[in-house]
């Protein structure tokens, strides 16, 4: 009898041991994300901030305010890239949000079910298309078109970047806006109809305002996607070596492009400076991320953020 009890204890202890072991494994797996974020920040910042310290340091001020990028002559200025990135993002959002929001309204409020079942897979496909394909499309269609109307005779321009980025942020904006519009309670609509409002009035005066925080989240996500986009933009931006953009037909060189274009052959200070560009980009992304986390908290939604 006694032996039996101790056996049971042993088994119990083995079970307990296993439970704890797996608990630890699960916890460690969850901590991998935290470690990764820390590692990314430490590695990228350590390398990216190196050229600004120590002997032979490059002035951070002339880096952040410089208007020329000429690695061969030790000139590294990225202000015009920051401006390019911001203008491209701004343009894409200014075009993409209205188009995306109205499309979302169509899908959620107006279209019959049958049409929705055709459009939605299409938008999902648009979201899944790799950015390189968007780049090829921009290079094959948008750039030649702009070539025809541009006074500079150059198709690769800020305008081309804005067009392609607009297309790329559309799926994000549409699907998030749509789900937040659908989440507006039915009673809002009914109350609006009851007050004698038409369908369109109801949509724009009652439903869309009620869905605004979801739409705002979609916008911020779109900003993040636009500012971080690399491959598509690289093929159509023109990538000039200096100078602020003066019109939408000017060539630009967004931050991401600067990194991707020269990383394959850069070394020494040049490579460090590309990482420094990465640090600046990262800072912008962090701003976007923090805004986003704030917003989702307000939404009370801790769901997926893609």
């Amino acid at each position, binding site marked *: 009898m006694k032996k039996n009890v101790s056996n049971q204890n042993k088994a119990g202890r083995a079970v307990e041991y296993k*439970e704890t072991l797996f608990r630890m494994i*699960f916890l*460690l*797996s*969850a901590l*991998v*994300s*935290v470690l*990764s*974020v820390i*590692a*990314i920040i430490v*590695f*990228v910042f350590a390398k990216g901030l190196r050229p600004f310290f120590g002997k032979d340091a490059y002035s951070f001020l002339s880096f952040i305010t410089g208007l020329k990028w000429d690695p061969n002559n030790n000139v590294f200025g990225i202000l015009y890239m920051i401006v390019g990135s911001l203008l491209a993002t701004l343009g894409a959002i200014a075009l993409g949000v209205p*188009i*995306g929001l*109205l*499309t979302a309204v*169509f899908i959620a409020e107006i*279209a019959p079910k049958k049409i929705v079942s055709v*459009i939605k*897979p299409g*938008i999902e496909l*648009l979201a*899944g298309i*790799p950015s*390189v*394909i968007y*780049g*090829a*499309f921009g*290079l*094959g269609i948008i750039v030649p078109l702009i070539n025809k109307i541009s006074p500079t005779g150059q198709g690769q321009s800020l305008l081309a970047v804005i067009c392609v980025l607009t*297309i790329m942020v559309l799926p994000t904006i549409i699907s998030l806006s749509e789900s937040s519009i659908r989440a507006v309670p039915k009673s809002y609509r009914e109350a609006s109809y009851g007050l004698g409002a038409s369908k*369109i*009035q109801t*949509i724009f005066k009652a439903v869309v305002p009620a869905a605004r925080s979801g739409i705002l989240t979609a916008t911020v996500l779109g900003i*993040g996607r636009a500012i*971080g*986009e*690399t*491959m598509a933009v*690289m093929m159509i931006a023109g990538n000039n070596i200096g100078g602020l953009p003066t019109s939408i037909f000017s060539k630009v060189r967004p931050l*991401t492009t600067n990194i*991707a274009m020269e*990383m*394959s052959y850069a070394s020494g200070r040049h490579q460090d400076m590309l*990482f420094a560009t*990465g640090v600046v*980009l*990262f800072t912008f*992304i962090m701003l976007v*991320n923090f805004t*986003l*986390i704030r917003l*989702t908290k307000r939404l009370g939604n801790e*769901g*997926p*953020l*893609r």
Partner: protein
Amino acid sequence: MNTKNWNNRKMKDGFLRSLIYLATAVTISILFIIIGFILYKGIPGINFNFLTRNWDNKTTFVNVKADASKAGDGAEGYISSLGITVKEGDKNLVITKIEKNSAVHKAVNMKNESYDLKKDDTITKIGADNTEDLSYTDALKLLKDSDGTLRLKVTRPGGGIVPMFVSTIYIILLSLAIAGPIGISAAIYLNEYAKPGRILRSIRFAIQNLAGIPSIIYGLFGMLLFVQTLKMQYSILAGSLTLSILLLPTIISTTEEALKEIPRSYREGSYGLGATKLQTIAKIILPGALPGILVAVILSIGRIVGESAALIFTAGTVAQIPEGLIGGKSSAATLTTKMYWLIKETGDLSSASSIAVVLLVLIILLNIASKMITRQFLKKTGNG
């Protein structure tokens, strides 16, 4: 009733309504133009060879045993001693037909490994004579008269996507093997174990941040840590490790959604029967969440297939089937990175579009698969 007001309202409504239709039309036509453009440019380049061949031409020396006693004549260019038919190519001989019992099926390369010749291979050197120094008839004669072991220099034409396809699959498998278990375990921790507090907050914060980091930053990080610091060089392992981090947010949040769908009563029932927490997770929760986990896997595959910025500086852009996980021979281009490389280095939009067509087909298939799984899942749980 105020007619003016009424008309005004009608006009406004009509205007806004047409704006809505216009925006939708823009969205839809963009989709059609993109797909139409890719198909228009890419379809002409897609053929059997494109799908089955290597990317680069491959030149090999082979030894074949010619048998001059085998007589027989056929059309011009038929070489009875080898059992093949050739035609004149660009300063070489192109094999157009190989008999079933031909000697070239038993050809061996210089390392004495079997190297089976195929249709469309070109012969550029017969014995010690380069075909470019010979006239077509002389070259034919030389081949026809040869007896015993004959050394041929054979070039197999490239232009196909097989290496990139294989590399893509390798990278998918490797990344999922790394990120899958970690991501699923993390989701289990977050949904089943974690209590509100500092740890949970920081983990969620980290995941949200990871989701927002653009892939070029992942590429920089992967290059710095895996390629340079850990000395993996451009390799599929470095690429896959980089992608694994990039995939974590997708896998974790999708799996978590699936875990949340499992009703509380299932867990309580399991505990009530005396099962431990781990047993409940392994026997009740995970099987129930399987469709959701599958969707996470499919979403991840979609991301890997489309990823380029994070891979260029970690896995490289060489079109070869990788040998090994790290080191010089394991560098590999996926379909997408090769497409980028083609546009940037050669400006060859047509070949790039042909690859794009393959990518589009893959993406569409993945979308359909995830739809079907979700639908099946909804039917089963009756939530649809």
